């Protein structure tokens, strides 16, 4: 049984469906408006497929102006709106509802400006994360945040969820790499937040917007920082006989003040799954593996790796393997970045996303294994160890409702554990519907109420992505 509830659809809206669709048809061309049940099916869920709801209608506008017109239209009709990028959310951030119109930005995928001197790029937010890096790669730049779904996920979704990725250990998450955005508010008003520089006068509404999960507005354009590509980068693979040893090694590297570009952890089940897909040369006879990447000149890379290897040796590392070519490096990252999808080869899974202080890694890994085993399930662990962002993949059978309920219960226990050790419910996937009902576990009522007041300043009627982020009970309207 799935345990997450959706608000009861508003019949006064669903009864007016024809009229609302007619109004939408007045502001976008036919090919941008999807209303047939058969076709809307493709939009009923995202990457959290256990939950599905048919929307009232789906609109795929082609410009900021069209987004504005659709938002104004929905506002006038009193209809809820669910924003959507590429629909890759693992937290259900893009799952619609029967009484809501989905506004997808996937047709907004152009690069608008590339300012080499200022090292910025301005894009429409339906562009994929990886396409941004691809657009500036010939000039020797890249866009730093690199969520594992970067091939498919959009900049719009990244901004909504404040996405991170393997390389955010050194370069920061989305909020550290966005300079300005164009936002359509719930009544269709278009505003600009931030600018082309690192700071602008007035309230830092940009900081407020990034990570607001589509509840304050729809971002249609963004100006992003881009970073010169390092002279070189090299990952090293470490194999350990226990997850605890690997966790302790990570904590020691952080404690030594070393900042690699990325520090990724995989346990034995995850190693086996990813190696089968990517053939990256991962060691298969170890209980835990770290992928640690450092960058710079050859001399810098050698020096950093020497320090890191010395620490690993002090923590019982058994296998040490350095990448010898660009191809090997690409395979190593392909394996890691495909971890979630590749897990689909062996079982259904839910992917958790919590963050803990890195010093707690050994304890949490041990406890996490016990929790999942206690529910009679298996877990594969892949995560961004450097910043303590865990992604346990709890394996289950989606065609068995009881199995699913157990998996979700185990997931909740793991997230509570993260909070208990001083961490938090989410690292980069956002709250969505998945973690909505745990927010009271993380925040006091006073904390939550203040967040709700800020939200209400943008959207007093709860029209934007209403089922998400905040528990359904106790909302201030």
């Amino acid at each position, binding site marked *: 049984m799935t345990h997450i509830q959706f608000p009861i659809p508003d019949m006064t809206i669903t009864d007016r469906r024809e009229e609302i669709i007619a109004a939408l048809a007045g502001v976008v061309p036919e090919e941008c408006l999807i209303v047939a049940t058969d076709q809307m099916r493709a939009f009923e869920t995202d990457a959290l*497929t256990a939950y599905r709801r048919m929307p009232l209608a789906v609109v795929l506008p082609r410009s900021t102006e069209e987004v504005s017109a659709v938002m104004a239209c929905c506002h006038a009709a009193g209809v809820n709106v669910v924003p959507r990028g590429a629909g890759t959310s693992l937290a259900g951030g893009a799952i619609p509802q029967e009484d809501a119109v989905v506004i997808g930005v996937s047709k907004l995928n152009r690069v608008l400006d590339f300012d080499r001197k200022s090292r910025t790029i301005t894009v429409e937010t339906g562009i994929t994360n990886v396409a941004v890096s691809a657009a500036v790669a010939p000039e020797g730049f890249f866009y730093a945040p690199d969520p594992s779904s970067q*091939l498919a996920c959009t900049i719009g979704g990244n901004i909504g969820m404040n996405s991170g990725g393997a390389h955010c250990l050194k370069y920061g998450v989305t909020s550290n790499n966005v300079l300005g955005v164009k936002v359509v508010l719930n009544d269709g008003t278009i505003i600009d937040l931030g600018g082309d520089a690192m700071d602008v006068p007035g309230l830092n509404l940009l900081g407020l917007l990034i990570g607001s999960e589509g509840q304050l507005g729809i971002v249609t354009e963004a100006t992003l920082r881009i970073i010169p590509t390092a002279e070189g980068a090299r990952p090293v693979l470490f194999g350990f006989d226990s997850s605890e040893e690997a966790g302790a090694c990570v904590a020691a590297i952080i404690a030594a003040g070393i900042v690699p570009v990325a520090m990724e952890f995989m346990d034995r089940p995850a190693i086996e799954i990813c190696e089968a897909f990517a053939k990256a040369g991962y060691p298969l006879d170890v209980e835990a593996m770290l992928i640690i990447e450092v960058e710079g000149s050859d001399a810098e890379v050698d020096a950093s790796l020497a320090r890191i290897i010395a620490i690993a040796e002090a923590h019982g590392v058994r296998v040490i393997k350095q990448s010898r070519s660009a191809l090997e490096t690409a395979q190593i990252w392909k394996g890691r970045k495909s971890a979630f999808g590749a*897990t689909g080869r062996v079982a259904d899974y839910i992917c958790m996303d919590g963050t803990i202080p890195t010093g707690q890694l050994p304890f949490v890994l041990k406890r996490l294994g016990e929790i999942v085993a206690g529910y009679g399930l298996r877990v594969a662990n892949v995560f961004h160890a450097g910043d303590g962002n865990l992604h346990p993949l709890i394996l289950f059978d989606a065609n068995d409702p009881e199995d699913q309920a157990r998996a979700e219960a185990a997931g909740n226990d793991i997230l509570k554990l993260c909070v208990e050790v001083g961490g938090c419910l989410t690292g980069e996937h956002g709250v969505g519907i998945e973690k909505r009902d745990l927010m009271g576990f993380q925040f006091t009522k006073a904390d939550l109420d203040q967040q709700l007041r800020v939200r209400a300043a943008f959207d007093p009627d709860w029209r934007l992505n209403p089922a998400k982020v905040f528990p359904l009970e106790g909302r201030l309207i």
Partner: protein
Amino acid sequence: MQTQFSAAQLADSQTRESEKILRSCVHCGFCTATCPTYLLEGDERDSPRGRIYLIKDMLENDKPASKEVVTHIDRCLSCLSCMTTCPSGVNYMHLVDHARSHIEKTYRRPWHDRLLRRVLAAILPYPSRFRAALTLGRLGRPLAPLLGRVPGGDRLKAMVSLVPVGGLPRVGAEPAQQGSCTRRVAILGGCAQKVLDPEINAATRRVLARLGVGVVPVPDEGCCGALVHHMGQEDKALVFARRNIDAWWPLIEDGLEAIIITASGCGTTIKDYGFMLREDPAYREKAARVSALARDITEYLDGLDLPEGRGDTLVVAYHSACSMQHGQQIRDEPKRLLQRAGYAVRDVPEGHICCGSAGTYNILQPGFASRLRDRKVANIERTKPDVIATGNIGCMTQIGSGTDIPIVHTIALIDWAMGGPVPNGLERIAP
């Protein structure tokens, strides 16, 4: 992904197979990013994930195909780029094949669509009919502007525009087999390629003869079935498959080493015969054996010791056909061979995206096909090549219709480097 099939539905082998495929999909969305139609449209319905979902809904609920679902499945090129991208190993090819045959059984297309599909299925797989049709097509060229006015006329126009200008190419001499050979292979004669460019298989025979590989003639083989298979006409496809298996079987029993294929579109299908005939007790094992023996010519040559080339400085843009790189996962072999033969090989940017040819796609979906062709040609021209090489006749026709840069089959360049004739179209730039 969760599925909801009843035990009765799962009694059907095709449904059982599709259920397995759907269960392996985790709906992660990676495939959307490398799908040509999603790149063009930014619309989930025109992405693999969207199509998988539409197919799932149709099959689970035993629904006849609706006009809307047919629109989006029809737009799929079956380029299988999604399968290369998919980390979960979802066999989209078999799923979309199932959907196409379900559409064929449950959906009545508009009359002009039915007519066109019937005509294509009745002509393309048969060389003599196709040859006659090309002659008619050339005669019909002046009428092309008028075609836009009849229902489905855009497709007829596309068809006529694909007819090669100036007749069919000449065929070079073929050497007699040199003595008795220990290695013996068959070459798929096939259908459309034989008519459009018979020189491809002639060049293949010359190259193999120089390497001491004997080519056994196979009189009764023909179209591999891919053309009708992709139109959902599964039964017809199986007739073609069985005929070919019957034609090859005595030779296989006699120790045939490989079935060489020079059109990668056919290669993908023949390598799938084992699956296609899995429920046919009389053919199951034979089909699996045929699939196991099927080799693209470049795949086969890559295992042989070819002489080093003479070091021409011709710049070759290698266009990997989707059926080559995605359907058969053959990526480096053709480039390695060309390099060894002395050509300067360039990769084409965005090389994983289809050129829009895709069997009969450029006739059935002329709008998408021409947008993809223009995108492909622009990417190819960025590498400033002297010549474009590829391993599929469909891509040659499609890309050739959009650029002045000569396009030839990979084997024609290999043959040339080994002393064969100058490939058709390269007379002007031959060093």
